[in-house]
């Protein structure tokens, strides 16, 4: 195994990990606050990529504009979906939320499959992000490098907002005890809807980042989301830091497995999940309740 090939897999691993981190972060925040296992997370990731495609084809808006606009559009979709549907399930068994979001996934994927089949539509990276970058110890595709940086910034920003700001304190308090938080005069119902919107917006952002790597296709979310669920379980359901750290770590682990034992690369994350569940059922960063 050459050093270059190892490094190439590492680069792919870290950038895949960047997607795992962004997606599991949104899932973790939504689960923590709303107690909803958002099965639609992969579908909104796909939606983000398609909205970027539409903005380009219909309005001629480029990649960078999409990076800003798509999270807003997809987040607004999340807010509406919450107000119209999810909100009715508050306080019920999480199973209902899982079923509803599973249904939303089928509808969203069905719509896009109807119009696009399951073949992908290419979406090219902006010119400035084409090519390779020399990091000194390795040469890396510039776009993957950008994905890692952008994801790290967004993950850090989300972590900071939750752990260090006043709004974040509201979120943490409501996650811990929504009833008491509301009795202090905090509008928890609005906070819940916003949280769903923000979690979903993160997935939309990840969808735009993914568009130039994976071709834009209706199933791009469901291929990824199963792994992301495993990542969330490993990190600890609802743990912000756990989602970020295990997202990147498992991407790297998957990359290395491709090098040393390629046959196992598709299952390594699930093997880790099984071990974590046996040893620490609440997840690596989870709080046992």
């Amino acid at each position, binding site marked *: 195994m050459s050093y270059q090939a190892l490094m190439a897999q590492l680069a792919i691993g870290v950038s895949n990990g960047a997607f795992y981190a962004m997606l599991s972060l949104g899932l973790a925040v939504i689960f923590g606050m709303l107690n909803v296992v958002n099965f639609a997370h992969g579908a909104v990731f796909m939606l983000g990529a398609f909205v970027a495609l539409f903005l380009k084809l219909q309005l001629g808006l480029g990649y960078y504009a999409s990076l800003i606009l798509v999270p807003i559009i997809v987040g607004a979709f999340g807010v509406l979906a919450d107000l119209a549907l999810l909100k009715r399930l508050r306080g019920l068994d999480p199973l209902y939320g899982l079923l509803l979001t599973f249904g939303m996934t089928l509808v969203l994927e069905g719509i896009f499959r109807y119009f696009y089949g399951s073949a992908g539509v290419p979406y090219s990276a902006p010119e400035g992000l084409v090519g390779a970058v020399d990091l000194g110890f390795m040469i890396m595709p510039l776009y993957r490098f950008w994905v890692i940086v952008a994801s790290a910034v967004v993950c850090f920003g989300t972590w900071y907002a939750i752990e260090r700001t006043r709004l974040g304190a509201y979120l*943490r308090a409501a996650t811990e*005890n929504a009833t008491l938080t509301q*009795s*202090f005069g905090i509008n928890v119902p609005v906070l819940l809807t916003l949280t769903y919107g923000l979690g979903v917006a993160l997935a939309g952002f990840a969808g735009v980042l993914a568009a130039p790597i994976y071709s834009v296709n209706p199933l791009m979310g469901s291929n990824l989301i199963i792994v992301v669920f495993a990542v969330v379980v490993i990190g600890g359901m609802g743990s912000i830091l756990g989602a970020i750290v295990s997202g990147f770590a498992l991407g790297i682990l998957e990359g290395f497995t491709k090098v040393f034992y390629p046959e196992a690369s598709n299952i390594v994350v699930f093997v880790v999940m099984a071990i974590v569940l046996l040893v620490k059922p609440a997840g690596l960063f989870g709080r046992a309740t």
Partner: protein
Amino acid sequence: MSTEPVLQIRDLEAWYGESHVLHGMEFDVRAGEVVALIGRNGAGKTTTLRAITGIVKKRAGSVKIDGTEAIKLRSDKIAKLGLGYVPEERGIFATLSVRENLLLPPAVKPNGMTEAQIYELFPRLQERARSQGTKLSGGEQQMLAIARVLRTGARLLLLDEPSEGLAPVIVQHIGRIICSLRDQGFTIVLVEQNFRFAATCADRFVVVEHGKVVDQVASADMDAKSGELAAYLGV
């Protein structure tokens, strides 16, 4: 001075699911008064406070706060009427630092205490500001729970068993704080099992039994009625 009570409770009923817990509570609290709710375990004292705050949602009757009917309002709206609630289990958040716990509740009325004033009153909270909220001792958590509502500008405070489970010196300290809050003009509803503690600054005792008020005793008549009260409390 207006004669309108700050808190007026009429025919208050409350349920946990199917179980009917309050059966027509009635009492008034006037501005600047400290009223102690006393009664046996399970009499419905905590439920009364939770029905006032709107935390118990299934309720009927009338709760007027400064003349505004609150029975149909959501709990965050009720808080904005100027209510500060210190729950029985204290409700300190483990995922928030001491300072974040303190700063959590938004202002509900103008002129709440500043952070500096709070720290003057509870120096210990400043020393521990960065620790995790639930790492505090029981007494410190109780002080934090009280301090937290003093910042919001609420003038009507509901305190549920602030002395529960605390060492005698700390109970005395908290007692002094409650008396000083009364001297500053706060209106306080105090739930207490510790009768001697309640007696240090309560103006009036409201005796609760089976979800109803069965007696009210002004603290001036306390000595004469102490036998009766002891009977109610089953001590």
